[in-house]
């Protein structure tokens, strides 16, 4: 009988934590899932935008790029609830293109178990498995907004095609960003966490991990976590392994707050924690049409143009249609011609026409040039992610194309937004080169045994499609590795 409380403690329940929790629980392992957000389920989700923003989302956190001499900031909007980002995402399920795998190997020397460069083929069975679990299918029920946008893009020679989505046929198009009220959206909450709970996993919601617990016996090892539970009490759990899946903004902070440098020494890989942060910097171009579209009554991103994804071909991904699913979020992001957030009479007139807008989401191939860290003096969390001249060129090309297509599709005018992101990644990369990564190709820390990372942090270089499916596939891969090599003894339970 092990003296450990759990076989595995998983910090976070989104794309990274969900599949892993399920697979380990299914294998009879004793699993604790510690989640900073609340445990809400289908019956809690409705279209009360303000309340759902409070319940399910982190308050937007902004970059502080002005500190490093860049003028533009990015609003980083993430999920904070059981299911993480997958409870509030738009459910686009995209496999990483082959060229991303090559870039990953170049970035960190990520490899397979035979020591060969890690390839798409390596991840395919895990993609297959996640797609089966989550009902991934082509989403062809396009709304009027997307049809109009596609008319314009077809005229300029770049038609949209349907996305693959984590959405079953039950979808009645009543919203994604504030939780799915029908369970049609198959995020980790419904596909993995609740099934894991039925298999014995324990979820600790509203609980914030303050540090990882280490032992020094026979080299540095993770042996548990300390966290503040939902009653505000400091609590310690011990386990055979600790897996951080708190997202690319939180995972590096947990590592840094845990004093990893003290236990592991000032190694090259410790120095990599929080570096190489990428976000797929995004913006939206909205078009105002004469017709009433009521474009919030949709699955928001049903179609895409992928031909410009690769950095050499433009470096931007276009997805549509998007109108933020509610007037409050829409009012917050829209800007004037100089990029200044709108207010006053002009904004009100735009809001009066809210029913007439449909938009295109632009995600660019940005660089792994950001950083997540804690200010040494104030201890405040900090996010640097420059919007470079190269980034601006990509946005400029994409915006010109979107505006041309919107006008060709019948829009009367167009509107821009602030920079934003929902695709944080890269801040604790995986790879064999420990001077450029934090975890190895199995996702175990280079420095601390029994410490793993399973979220978007590990993506070695910026992914050019929506990251959820890839993070879930890596999570499944980690589960297989752990069950074969680490947790293959008799369960603590």
């Amino acid at each position: 009988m092990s003296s450990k409380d759990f076989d595995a403690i998983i910090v976070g329940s989104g794309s990274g934590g969900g599949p892993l929790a399920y697979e380990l629980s299914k294998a009879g392992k004793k699993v604790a899932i510690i989640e900073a957000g609340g445990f809400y389920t289908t019956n809690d989700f409705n279209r009360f935008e303000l309340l759902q923003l409070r319940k399910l989302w982190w308050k937007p956190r902004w970059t502080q790029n002005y500190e490093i001499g860049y003028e533009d900031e990015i609003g980083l909007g993430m999920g904070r609830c059981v299911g993480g980002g997958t409870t509030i995402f738009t459910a686009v399920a995209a496999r990483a293109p082959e060229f991303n795998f090559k870039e990953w190997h170049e970035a960190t020397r990520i490899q397979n178990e035979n020591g060969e460069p890690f390839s798409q083929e390596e991840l395919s069975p895990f993609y297959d498995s996640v797609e089966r679990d989550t009902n991934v299918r082509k989403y062809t029920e396009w709304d009027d907004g997307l049809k109009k946008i596609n008319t314009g893009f077809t005229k300029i020679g770049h038609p949209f095609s349907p996305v693959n989505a984590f959405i079953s046929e039950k979808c009645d198009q009543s919203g994604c960003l504030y939780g799915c009220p029908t369970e049609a959206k198959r995020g980790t909450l419904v596909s993995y966490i609740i099934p894991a709970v039925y298999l014995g996993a324990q979820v600790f919601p509203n609980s914030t991990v303050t540090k990882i617990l280490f032992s020094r016996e026979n080299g540095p090892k993770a042996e548990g976590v300390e966290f503040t539970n939902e009653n505000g009490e400091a609590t310690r759990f011990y386990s055979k392994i600790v897996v951080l899946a708190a997202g690319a903004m939180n995972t590096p902070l947990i590592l840094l707050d845990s004093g990893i440098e003290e236990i592991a020494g000032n190694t090259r890989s410790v120095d990599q924690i929080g570096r190489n942060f990428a976000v797929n910097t995004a913006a939206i171009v909205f078009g105002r049409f004469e017709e009433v579209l009521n474009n919030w009554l949709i699955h928001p991103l049903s179609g895409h143009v992928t031909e410009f994804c690769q950095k050499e071909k433009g470096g931007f991904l276009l997805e549509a249609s998007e109108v933020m699913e509610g007037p409050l979020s829409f009012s917050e992001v829209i800007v004037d011609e100089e990029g200044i957030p709108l207010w006053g009479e002009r904004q009100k007139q735009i809001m009066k026409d809210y029913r007439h807008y449909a938009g295109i989401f632009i995600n660019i191939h940005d660089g792994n040039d950001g950083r997540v860290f804690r200010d040494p003096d104030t201890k405040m969390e900090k996010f640097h992610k420059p919007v470079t001249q190269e980034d601006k060129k990509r946005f400029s090309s994409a915006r010109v194309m979107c505006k041309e297509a919107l006008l060709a599709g019948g829009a009367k005018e167009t509107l821009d937004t602030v920079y934003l992101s929902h695709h944080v990644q890269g801040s604790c990369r995986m790879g064999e080169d420990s001077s450029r990564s934090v975890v190895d190709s199995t996702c175990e820390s280079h420095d601390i045994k029994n410490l793993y990372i399973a979220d978007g942090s590990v993506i070695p270089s910026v992914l050019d499609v929506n990251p959820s499916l890839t993070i879930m596939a890596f999570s499944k891969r980690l589960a297989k590795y752990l069950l074969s090599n680490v947790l293959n003894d008799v369960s603590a339970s």
Partner: protein
Amino acid sequence: MEGIEPESDNPRNLPSRKEEEYYFLTNEEARFFSTLSGLIVPGKEGEPGAKDVGGLSYIDSALLDLPKIVQDYYSGAIKALNFLSHSKFGNRFPELQKSEQNAALREFFLDQKTREMMFDLRSIVLESFYSDYHAPWYEGKTGWEFTGFSGKRISDLKKDWTFLRVWKDSTTSSAENKS
């Protein structure tokens, strides 16, 4: 509901509250938000604005529920913007002419050191209207009606405002202040 003329500042003597007082806001902060609300979501004949729907009571209640570090951030932001208004335009923000107030907002958005603060202050004012909030006594058009936001799972939504200590849902006509 204005209650912004200070006889004395209203320190954080929570949670007691009278009609013209605030759960959280000091009179100076209330004056700032009242001015800001009139600029961000202005009202006019036949078109409600944030002040018309009683948005100041929303802001007051919303700030009350935030962690102290965030409350301090908002209070600090107001102080900082009043200070900058005074140093750049010769008066605190609420006392500026309307054209100067708009010019000040523009400067605050352009200045990287105040941009995030300004965005957050603007956001809470936008919330006080476009979230569909309206004070219990208000019977006119709301933010969602103004924008035409409606449809399945929206039009029949009972919005529970109890988390703001203001009132219970959008179909209730009387106040349920839980002070």
